[in-house]
């Protein structure tokens, strides 16, 4: 039966996340925006609490690692599972602060990657490891198939030797490990790209520098150099075989799982701006009337209605993508739709909210200007707006990447 209300069973979880976001993240939100590169020590306590919740089962398996798909049961009942729980709790936490969410121990995108492609033995071995994600290189952004970092098998030592430079590694300095994308053979193209879990402190891995950024300044973004960096062969995620037919699919499967999470971040951040601006508008005497036509209300109210409608669309596309994952349906198209819509809507809403609130929006005395800076990255990382549109277009039109470049 069609029902698009938030799943009832996750109400306690999201309320809990909301309280954490309000009482733990918001009070330190500006502090770490100003003190870029300083480690938010408060987060260790929070991470411990989240681990506790997860032990107790109260978190429903939500979080970055909650995107794992089990394909065991032949059960046809409709599931509301960990994918939904994850997007909902991440949206709530990002309502608190996106940068801090990204800095939360053991909640890195690398954890989602591990959850998505690791075998059972690896999942077990890397349980509790905080993992960042290293894909982008100085000359390679959206075209991740053309990365230059190499992984050469040293069969004598049963290890791979990594060489190359990775940039924009979220939590690259703080995390326990990074998931590094590297090619086994550049001549074999995308099929030869594999991901490797490289623990922090592995000889040959060096954090070169940290970026100074427009937003999400609480989160560290590192450049990491790999020079003859040896990682155990069993740290290669998935199969070591280069299957030219399967191509990029294995590595790309990670994105089907992480894109709804990034959509959730945009949804949460935009909601923060909407909630505050609605309140500010009400204090200024502008009530949003859902029944009167927008054209008969003030321009500010009409703009608000448009923003809230776009927000609701992003929210529902996010839930749809997660719901499909929970019910073991392929969701590449829907994941990209969710990220495309949430990414652009996140920017429109946070920027428009600054405009609506005027100098209050622009000043550092409020958080509106910060959200307008934080939201921008969400339309860029894990696939830019344009990459999402490309994916959606190829799927809808049935065109290959050779036909629609």
């Amino acid at each position: 039966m069609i029902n698009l209300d938030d799943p009832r069973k996750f109400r306690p979880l999201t309320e809990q996340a909301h309280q954490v976001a309000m009482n733990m993240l918001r009070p330190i939100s500006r502090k770490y925006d100003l003190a870029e590169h300083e480690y938010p020590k408060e987060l260790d306590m929070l991470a411990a609490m989240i681990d506790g919740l997860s032990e107790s089962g109260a978190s429903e398996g939500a979080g970055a690692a909650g995107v794992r798909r089990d394909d065991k049961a032949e059960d046809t009942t409709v599931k509301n599972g960990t994918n939904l729980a994850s997007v909902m709790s991440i949206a709530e936490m990002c309502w608190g602060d996106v940068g801090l969410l990204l800095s939360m121990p053991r909640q890195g995108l690398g954890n989602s990657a591990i959850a998505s492609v690791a075998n059972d033995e690896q999942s077990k071995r890397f349980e509790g490891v905080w993992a960042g994600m290293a894909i982008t290189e100085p000359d390679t952004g959206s075209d991740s198939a053309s990365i230059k970092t190499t992984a050469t098998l040293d069969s004598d030592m049963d290890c791979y030797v990594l060489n190359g430079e990775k940039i924009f590694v979220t939590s690259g300095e703080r995390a326990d490990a990074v998931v590094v994308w590297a090619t086994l053979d550049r001549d074999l193209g995308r099929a030869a790209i594999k991901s490797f879990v490289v623990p922090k402190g592995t000889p040959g891995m060096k954090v070169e520098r940290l970026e100074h950024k427009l937003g999400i300044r609480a989160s560290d973004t590192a450049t990491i150099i790999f020079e003859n960096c040896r990682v155990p062969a069993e740290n290669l995620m998935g199969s070591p075989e280069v299957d030219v037919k399967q191509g990029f699919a294995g590595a790309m499967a990670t994105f089907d799982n992480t894109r709804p999470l990034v959509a959730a971040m945009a949804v949460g951040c935009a909601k923060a701006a909407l909630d505050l601006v609605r309140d500010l508008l009400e204090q200024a005497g502008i009530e949003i009337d859902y029944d009167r036509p927008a054209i008969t209300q003030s321009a500010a109210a009409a703009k608000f209605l448009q923003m809230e409608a776009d927000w609701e669309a992003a929210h529902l596309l996010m839930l749809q993508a997660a719901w499909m994952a929970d019910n073991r349906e392929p969701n590449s198209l829907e994941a990209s739709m969710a990220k495309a819509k949430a990414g652009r809507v996140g920017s429109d809403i946070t920027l428009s909210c600054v405009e609506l609130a005027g100098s209050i929006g622009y000043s550092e005395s409020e958080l509106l200007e910060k959200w307008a800076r934080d939201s921008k990255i969400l339309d860029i990382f894990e696939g830019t707006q344009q990459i999402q549109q490309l994916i959606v277009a190829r799927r809808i039109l049935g065109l290959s990447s050779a036909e629609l470049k």
Partner: protein
Amino acid sequence: MSLIQSLKPGGKHGLSSKESRDPIGYAVAALNRLAQSDLIDRVGLRKASEQVVFSATRSGFKAATTANRTFAKAGKKGKQGVRAPAATPKGVFDLTPTEDEQMLVDVVTEFAEEVVRPAAAEANETCTAPEALLKAGLEIGLPILGVPESLGGISEERSAMAGTLVAEALAKGDMGLAVAALAPGSVATALGLWGTDAQQQTYLPAFTGDDVPAAALALTEPTVLFDVLSPSTTAEKTADGFVLNGVKTLVPRGAEAELFIIGASLEGEPVLFLVESSTPGITVDGDPAMGVRAASLAKLTLTDVAVPADAVLGATDGTTYLECVRLSRLAWCALAVGTGQAVLDYVTPYVKQREAFGEPIAHRQSVAFMVANIAIELQSMRLLTYKAASRAAAGKDFAREVALARKLCADKGMLIGLDGVQLLGGHGFVKEHPVERWYRDLRAIGVMEGSVLV
């Protein structure tokens, strides 16, 4: 003097009242009036008459309404009618329709593909829905979809979700024909939702029988910045009932309708009234519009229309009226989703076949991204509409959800119509392809109030 007066610009031909004419302008305007005169036709000065079929409709009838069925009074006045129970979802987020809903959608989808779509172009030109199509619509149960089982309908519970899915599927065939086919059922659904025992017993048998009357929900008025919640049409209390005065526009199948639900202000609150078309004081004019033309849109003028005391449908405190407005907006959202899907399904193969610079235009990002955005916004519209519909069916408050759905469907639906034509270029502008019709139809969302509901 009189000529100068009537040549004053403003208020017609799309001119602002601020416009003024200089002497040459007056001369041109006078010449134009002469050119329009029948006289030159009679003396054979004009080469050919280019009468479009609809212009006959436009000014052809200005009369009392054509149909004059008498509805035999039955049932108990003042006793509450039968109500379908609300759906009871389990609190699980779910995008799967029920089996019954899916069956219904499959039947209507087939009907839309095989009957509605092929009839759409001509129905648009003639401003009429083919008799056979409307009959077929009755056979698949469109008028009784929202009528409770115990009153001869097929609805076991609140039908807003099923109605939404059906309206979407029909509009994929054609929006105008969908409105024509759904209008009687909207009145029947309203009777099921808010009618007293007497109103249900008096009117519903006609809708559940073989000879289903045309009927329409008339809320829209010809007012700039129209706010449906404050209708200018008035209802005044008299000794034995009410007297209605006012004008309603864009009423589907207004000329043939035998029963109207008309919105009017009663003591400052908007209220719904059941008005039989045979009631003296109602005149009907053709009112063809930019789109939704197959619905034979008409303008109703009500001059001292006296209705009995039990003509009030639902509450007089504005609550029934408000719920009706929301359910009607929901129906228009569903229609927008269906028509938007028609656009996407049409442009997809087109841009893959159409070649420019030696390859299909779909291979260009500027084209492909437009298609991607149509798909993204269309799914957004659908999800918002379904959320509002499922809340309505479950008897939950859906004011916020339907408002957001309407905003998105009005904005993005129009964008889809616009981009649909653009993707076909010049071919999109000509009637050889249906996208120009969808462009005109999609402008209705956000403008239309009433007419249909789910």
